[in-house]
């Protein structure tokens, strides 16, 4: 259903211009569906990046799970490589944190998101893979679900047909803040799929607080902090008020930070959420719960009677008003449209 010809795609919008690749929104001319196209120039000789992309495609194509961002198709044309992904209308959670939910997502939405993410992780871990770079920037959101993407740091326990007990290898520089202490340690004991769970914990703090933990911290300090077992925490009334006691008065220059402070010091996140993060951020990898077990945590009780689309509807006004996601299609993208998107992903034999 996807053609190899560029003429069959109508590029509508530039989503991102990266150092190595550009990401566009496009329409399939045949069925008028929205897709995302990543264009990667092959002639610049950035072999390392290309290899990473190959690895990602190879890895992604082995997966088939509703919460893993699939690769619809890829082809080369005129010295460029094009990779086609389904269009996720709200984009990466990190962008949403920067634009709309600057003080963090609501807890109920986080629970729903993580239910999807954990179900993807459970599937990946079951297949002896480790994602290796779980963070808000790698979780995409649309009206219906959250999906996990960016598998370029993914590693497999299966190597040359043999299952190896532990993995080695360090994370990319920009993903270090989410990395588990045992990954940073780079010792002979290596790490296991539990490193993803630690990243889930850090991501949970990121989504709830609106800012990534260890933001603008020296990497070496972040490392020693993690080795010592010091972990970031969710900012709410139980944790954030301590800052006030230390200072004596509110040390804020502008009203913006003052408002942030007021929100954090007044809101209440559930004990289950705190406990969930605590379990994820356990210093000892063996004591961290597996993705499967985490799915049964009390934190997800609140997901029972709601779906992501309910929450999206609640925040709709905010989303619509925001200029950063000024997508003409987003407002119109009702449930029928989304279903159509699903159906067009078929196997073409």
């Amino acid at each position, binding site marked *: 259903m996807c053609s190899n010809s560029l003429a069959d795609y109508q590029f509508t919008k530039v989503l991102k211009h990266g150092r190595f690749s550009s990401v566009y929104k496009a329409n399939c001319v045949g069925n008028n569906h929205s897709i995302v196209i990543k264009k990667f120039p092959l002639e610049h000789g950035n072999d390392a990046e290309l290899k990473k992309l190959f690895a990602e495609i190879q890895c992604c194509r082995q997966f088939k799970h509703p919460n893993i961002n699939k690769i619809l198709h890829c082809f080369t044309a005129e010295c460029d490589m094009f990779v086609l992904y389904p269009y996720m209308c709200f984009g990466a959670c990190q962008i949403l944190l920067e634009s709309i939910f600057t003080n963090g997502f609501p807890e109920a939405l986080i629970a729903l998101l993580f239910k999807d993410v954990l179900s993807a992780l459970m599937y990946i871990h079951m297949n002896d893979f480790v994602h290796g770079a779980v963070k808000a920037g790698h979780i995409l959101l649309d009206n219906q679900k959250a999906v996990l993407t960016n598998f370029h740091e993914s590693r497999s326990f299966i190597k040359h047909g043999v299952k190896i007990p532990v*993995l*080695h*290898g*360090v994370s*990319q*520089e920009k993903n*270090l803040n989410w990395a588990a202490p045992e990954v*940073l*340690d*780079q*010792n*002979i*004991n*290596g790490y296991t799929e539990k490193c993803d769970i630690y990243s889930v914990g850090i991501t949970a703090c990121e989504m709830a607080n609106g800012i990534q933990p260890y933001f603008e911290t*020296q*990497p*070496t*300090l972040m*490392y*020693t902090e993690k*080795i010592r077992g010091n972990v970031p925490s969710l900012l709410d009334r139980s944790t954030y008020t301590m800052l006030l006691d230390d200072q004596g008065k509110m040390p804020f220059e502008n009203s913006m930070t003052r408002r942030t402070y007021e929100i954090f010091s007044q809101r209440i996140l559930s004990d289950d959420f705190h406990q969930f993060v605590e379990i994820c951020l356990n210093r000892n990898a063996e004591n961290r719960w597996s993705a499967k077990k985490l799915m049964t945590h009390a934190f997800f009780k609140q997901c029972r009677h709601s779906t992501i689309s309910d929450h999206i509807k609640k925040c709709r006004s905010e989303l619509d008003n925001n200029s950063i996601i000024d997508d003409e299609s987003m407002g119109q993208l009702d449930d029928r449209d989304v279903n159509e998107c699903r159906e067009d992903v078929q196997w073409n034999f």
Partner: protein
Amino acid sequence: MTVTVTSTHVMDAQVIATHLQAGGEQQHGSNILVDVAGKDVGLAGAADDEMTVLLTNQNYHQEPTSDIEEAFLERNGNNAELDAAAGGQLHAELAGVTWLDDDAIDALDRVTQDIGNMFFNRVDSQDIIYQQKKKNIKLVGKYVMGDVLGEGSYGKVKEAMNSENLSRLAVKILTKRKLRRIPNGEQNVTREIHLLKQLKHRNIVDLVDVLYNEEKQKMYLVMEYCIGGLQEMLDNAPDKKMPLYQAHRYFQQLVNGLEYLHSCRVIHKDIKPGNLLLTLDQTLKISDFGVAEQLDLFAADDACTTGQGTPAFQPPEIANGHETFAGFKVDIWSSGVTLYNLATGFYPFEGDNIYRLLENIGRSQWIAPDWLYDMDECFARLILGMLQADPSERLSLQQIRKDTWFLSAPAVTDPPIPIPPLKEKYGRSTVLPYLEAYHYGSEQEQEDVYFTEHDVNQELARRAASAAAEIRANKSAAANAACHLYEPSTSAEAAAAAMANGSREETSIKKKGSGFKRRAKKLASCISVRKLSHCRTS
């Protein structure tokens, strides 16, 4: 009047101190302070291997000082309070002490060298005071330096960490002063850097960065971190060998690496277990390109003229001193010797000294012993193929790839021999304590620790005595057990006796047993070969 003297070496320092004393001042009660580099020194905890050095070389004075990075020596004119200078009392006197930095030390060294040391004077060991070095963070470029991993003739290898992406690294520190002492030293290093920069392969050690410090006359080669070499693994293994399947694993990677090297026209020339390192995930890395050679792009064949590798791994054509020889086949031979050594713990050729050894290598075609065929016939044939005296008869890498044993998967029998444990308890980066001291320094500002040369000597003497006692005990136990073992009828009884004697004695028997089988082998360094080739040509 107070004169402050420093030196990088305690013995020098003593001389300097006394020399100045001779210049018309008081002779006694001089108080010398020496700042000692961290953990491996003196009271702070000398490692076991340091003990053995001390036993053979009775010089207690020099051992702890060899690790001194910055030695501070202070001569205090006020001798009245110094007579009882020890322990806590030192602390109070420190107000009058002037600490010198590196430059001042160098300057003073030069001055004293110019004057010449006319005579020696005695300094009481109670008066030489060491200060335990604090873990001060040291940055070279963006790399945070850790503990010393090893030391060679060219300089030290330290562990390091990239402060930006937190990857673990090893840094080879080369000092110009030390390089000049090694024949072809600077030339070899330039070549190594040039080669490593173009080589990128899974099985070749990766050169991450090269930094220069003009002021200190130092060069830093930043490489990927390896947890150990095959030689260390063998040295720590009970029989100095590894199971066949483990050797097979490493050999396959060695062949992969060599294939890449040869495709880049590079001949390593010094393949041996000591130059094969392992990363955390047990990937083999070929390292040390100090004597490697890259053929000219337009060279007609792989003819080489110089061979500077390790003697025991040299092929007959080099041992016999041929004018030119086929370069690629040199690496094949060395790999053959390496594989043989990994799997059996022996060397195909041995000799009491380097001349004998080279004579043995060059004399005749090697014949695989019968027990090797018993061990694994295919393996024996492969070794024989790689150890053909005639380079043209010797297997090529392509032929090795098709070899039966190479393609086979030897059965996993015993557990693999482990990589010797690192000093750090959790195998973590040794940079960590430096980082902690840097980031949390104010929390745990350690007290300065001082101790005197006298304390060091006493401690070392105590350890030497206890070690000697242990060796004596072991020897007598071994002799005892050996007596039992020689009674053929009661071997079971002897074994029981040995068991009763305890596990320690048992291991000593083993050691002794293996000693009978194999002569002590000490590999001459590559430098000696070079000297030899010089002899030949001149």
